[in-house]
């Protein structure tokens, strides 16, 4: 990745982190709801847990930002590498029969993208407050990546045909 991520101040970086963690939390909440609607309670529970974890991250960012005047940034003006918050979970790769294993794969992808984001800022920044904060955040994301990998290793890989439904909710006749 060579795109330059121009973060102008600590407040700017904190505004990005707040948006990223908020989008992650809300994304997991939405996915949990989707799975509940489709009676996939096992995966819904996992998404709820992830949403809770992300809510703690949001809380932590808000505490860290206390006393800092965070700039208002329209959603399309954040310096995300590909236009979307790195830790936001992708809705596109979901399926109503997905398993907790698939859910954790999504989470791993999101955390890895967040890790890459902060790693890139650290690499592009001059020494100073922004780089110090980005380093700290990078280390946190590295921990999250490792945690999810450990969690993932404990789950059985789904069998081939996990998405086969003998009685699909919609069927062309």
């Amino acid at each position, binding site marked *: 990745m060579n795109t330059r991520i121009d973060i102008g101040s600590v407040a700017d970086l904190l505004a990005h982190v707040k948006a990223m963690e908020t989008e992650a939390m809300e994304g997991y909440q939405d996915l949990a*709801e989707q799975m509940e609607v489709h009676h996939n309670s096992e995966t819904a529970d996992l998404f709820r847990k992830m949403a809770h974890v992300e809510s703690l991250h949001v809380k932590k960012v808000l505490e860290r930002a206390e006393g800092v005047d965070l700039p*208002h940034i329209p*959603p*399309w003006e954040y310096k995300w590498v590909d*236009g979307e918050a790195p830790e936001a979970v992708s809705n596109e790769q979901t399926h109503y029969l997905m398993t907790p294993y698939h859910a954790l794969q999504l989470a791993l992808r999101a955390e890895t993208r967040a890790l890459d984001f902060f790693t890139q800022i650290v690499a592009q920044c001059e020494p100073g407050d922004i780089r110090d904060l980005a380093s700290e955040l990078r280390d946190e994301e590295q921990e999250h990546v490792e945690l999810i990998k450990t969690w993932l290793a404990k789950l059985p890989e789904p069998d081939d045909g996990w998405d086969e439904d003998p009685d699909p909710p*919609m069927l062309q006749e």
Partner: protein
Amino acid sequence: MSVNSATTSAFSARDYKSDVKPVWCPGCGDYTVLSAIGKALAELALAPEEVAVISGIGCSSRIPAYLNTYGFHGVHGRSTALATGLKLSRPDLTVLVTGGDGDGFSIGGNHFLHACRRNVDLTYIVMDNRVYGMTKGQPSPTTEPDWDSALSPGGTGLRPFNPLVIALASGANFIARGFSGDPNGTAKLITEAIQTPGFSFVEVLSPCVTFRPDQRDWKKIVRPAPVDPTEDIGQAARRLMTDDGFNLGVLYSGKRKPYALTKHEVTSDMTNLEQQFAI
């Protein structure tokens, strides 16, 4: 035209979410369009009670239920007609119209033309997945002629409807295309559409993962339009006639004055209406 969003907003996208859980298939593009609408409304700092969302019938037409703005889930294909009446009687409201390609271009095709022609200040967001998803996968007006499926063996062989060209020819004042895989980009387009006076038409490519799983590949095909927005209708026409359907962005932004009722036209109240029917 640049987007003028609030320097700060009292609202977040979440503030527009109702307690009703969407019943769409996981992976459906409509989820991100819903989120993009919330982001746009928050950026414009519009209170939920200042907004009405009107729809017809179809998967995407369920959106009013998922928002806590005013909403009306109306008759199939008649959403723009309903919204026109609402906007003329309540010009203070920001009125959005949402729906799909079948509702908007087939059942509601006639209303679509005349909504563009009248140029009332509405924002019409069509989630185009080129299929009737709710009724299990029939080809819609925008389906490719060679799309082979159980319900259209060998494809329909019919030329697809080109909604952006029709919108331009019929008088829409703002024409844009977004992609549900780009929620922030779509939020920007919706924001700009709401800010532009007159009838704004935003087509959002929104994959149907159940009946058109091939549309997952759209992510690899879509690209920002390689041209700036234009207010030149001739240039826009040439651009849209040669467009392959995957260029994203504002493709036309005109200066046509929106239609609005003048005060003298609103003369009837319930009393004199009753008098007219008195025997």
